[in-house]
């Protein structure tokens, strides 16, 4: 069962890693606009020429 010591420390290391990444993300403003950025992935990458149909909202 000594393996547990290593596993526990490993898992805590992962947690710490998560926290570091999360703090970094928050400090880089990754969390400040949760709704809008996630929507933009739904749009096409290519530049669309603005047409009248394009302005309708859903």
């Amino acid at each position, binding site marked *: 069962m000594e393996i547990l010591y290593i596993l526990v420390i490993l898992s805590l290391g992962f947690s710490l890693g998560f926290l570091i990444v999360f703090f970094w993300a928050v400090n880089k403003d990754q969390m*400040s606009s949760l709704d809008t950025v996630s929507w*933009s992935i739904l*749009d096409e990458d290519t530049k669309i020429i603005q047409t009248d149909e394009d*302005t309708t909202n859903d």
Partner: protein
Amino acid sequence: MKSAMSSATSFSSESIGAFLLKTDLHWKLDLFIKGVHCGHCVFKIEKQINKNAKMAHYQFEAGGERLSLWSSDPQFFPETVELINSLGFQAIPLSPELKVDNCENKFKSEIKRLAVAGVSAGNIMLFSVAIYLGADAAFTTFFHKLCLVLVLPSLFYSAQPIWMGFWQSLRYRRFNLDLPIGLALATGFLLSLVSFIQGRDGIYFDTIAVVTFLILTSRFVLCRYVSRIYQKNIVHFIPGVYQARRKLNGKSQLIALQSISRGDLIEVWRGETLPVDGVLLSEEAILDTSVLTGESSPVVYKKGDLVFAGTQLCADKILLQSQKTAGQTRVGQLIERALQGLRHDQEESFYWVSRFTAFVILSALATFTYFLWLDSLAIGFYRAFAIVIVACPCAVSFGIPLIRSFSGQLAIKNGLVLKNPQVLKKIKQISHICFDKTGTLTQGRVEIEPAELMALSSQDRLRLLSLELSMDHPISKGFHKYLDSQADLLPVQDFQYLPGKGIQGTIEGEMWQVFSTTSLDGKKRVAVFKEGVELTQLRLSTDLKKDILPLFKSLSDRGLQISLLSGDSGPQVAPIFNLIPPKAQGQCLSQASPEDKLQFIKNQGEKAMMVGDGINDIAAMQSAPLSLCMPGALENNMSLADISMARGDLTLVEKVFQLAHKVERTERNLLIFTFLYNVTCVALASAGYITPVVAAILMPVSSLTVLSLVTFSLRKL
């Protein structure tokens, strides 16, 4: 509405200048963008502003309704505002001081605290499960050591807000929720620490971590909800005005609203809203004062009169001298008062939480003293501690905030915006519901029936339109759709507005008059006179909204009295009043001035609810215990009414009641559960049946029960 707006919102670079905030490297501008509905709108704006090379950085907030822009070139900002407006949105610059203070930084630090608490609680639970399932002695000690290390960041970093509240509660001798929580956390930690050092049982690091995490989560969710509502509502003190024309050395120039100071000469053009309270310098001004007084027909002011911000100029061009600006104006004060109410409600501590706290502390103390006297210090301490842990008011401390937050979100989903989640509680006291007629039960638009108008010769019709459209008035709006092009309008000389009567003017040498009359059947009409001879009478009509019958029926089934308060004459109101089921018929007030409405509501005391459209009902809505506002002409109606409707759909009125009852039921269930749980557990704990270890298991179980109870009951209407 759109045509009037577009001219008023084109910003000159000088007027934007006042909104810019100088940061270290760049200028910053905050915008409120009207018309953003979804991610696609945001994306459209993003694509366009990205094209401008001068932009340094931008950021959307609050679901895309707020945009912050950074650039080193001040010229960038007017260009961008122009660009956003050209896409069909309306970008409104926000004053830097109106920004909710430090919201971003607070959000960042809170979400970090939450992450730490989550990591701490999650890992500790893993070890605790192992311990409870019977890990051997060596591992148990090892896990306890790990738990101690893991609970420290949760307690000393994440729980800081709780400690602050705890300290303030002690300092100002006021019960708040942080007192028992802080007490439980502190004693729990100290006792666990002592047990840990002595190598005995009774180590509750797991409980401490989980409690901290759950409490912080519920508070975070609530805080986000409130600040989102807050940001949505607050734009400006003077509804619909963002800039003004200042006259300086004979030249008039557009400047930002907040650059106006006392004594400035301000020019206002027809159709614009007055930006300040001031003294009228022109000979005469015809103003639509419905925002302030509720009087829907325009009022004539003379030179030297005090005129108020928020009122709208119906004709000509006037000059006034500014006296009071922004928050000091009458309309600004109204809005400021509503905002203060919002801030205050946020701070309000729950009435019976202090009772609960007292109950827990007293039972713990009583148990402690009793066993100290009867038995030993150790037993007294352990039982008291079991009580504090098992009865930790988490059910209340995050159950109630969760209900508020969920009810707010549920309301928004259904098209209702609550000023704050607490307003729903007032619905219990309501037994009388008062409706405004125009704009609330009817469409509020005056329609001119085409038959008689089209019977006129096209020349006469054009003259009539020219006269009607030389002033903005509810009736004249009905004529708009009969006009082919603005250019056709003929010049009107000697235009006169006769309050309560009508209008007159000379067109191409002919004297034209339009007076309002009432026909024999009680319908409102306007009579048209040419050179003193009556040409024709035009019929006016207003449409009833659909769903009015089911609404009256369901309200009457709820046992409510329904009254109508209308400024219109009796024959117009009576047919609608007769639609109300007889047993629910309250009173029918016709030709009621805003003051009459106010008095009527006041006489009802605490049981009346006012439903209006925000213009002529403001006074009544302000004094009613509960007010519901139709989406309407007043931009800030959201801040003034308790509940505002996103659509003019009458079924939403019924939804308010459904929602309130649902929330009330959930809250009652929660209270019953909490009461039973606490009384039983405290009794068992003081009798010694619940050891602190069992308490530590029961507590999160009860919290989870509360969580699922609330989530399940409030998931949909």
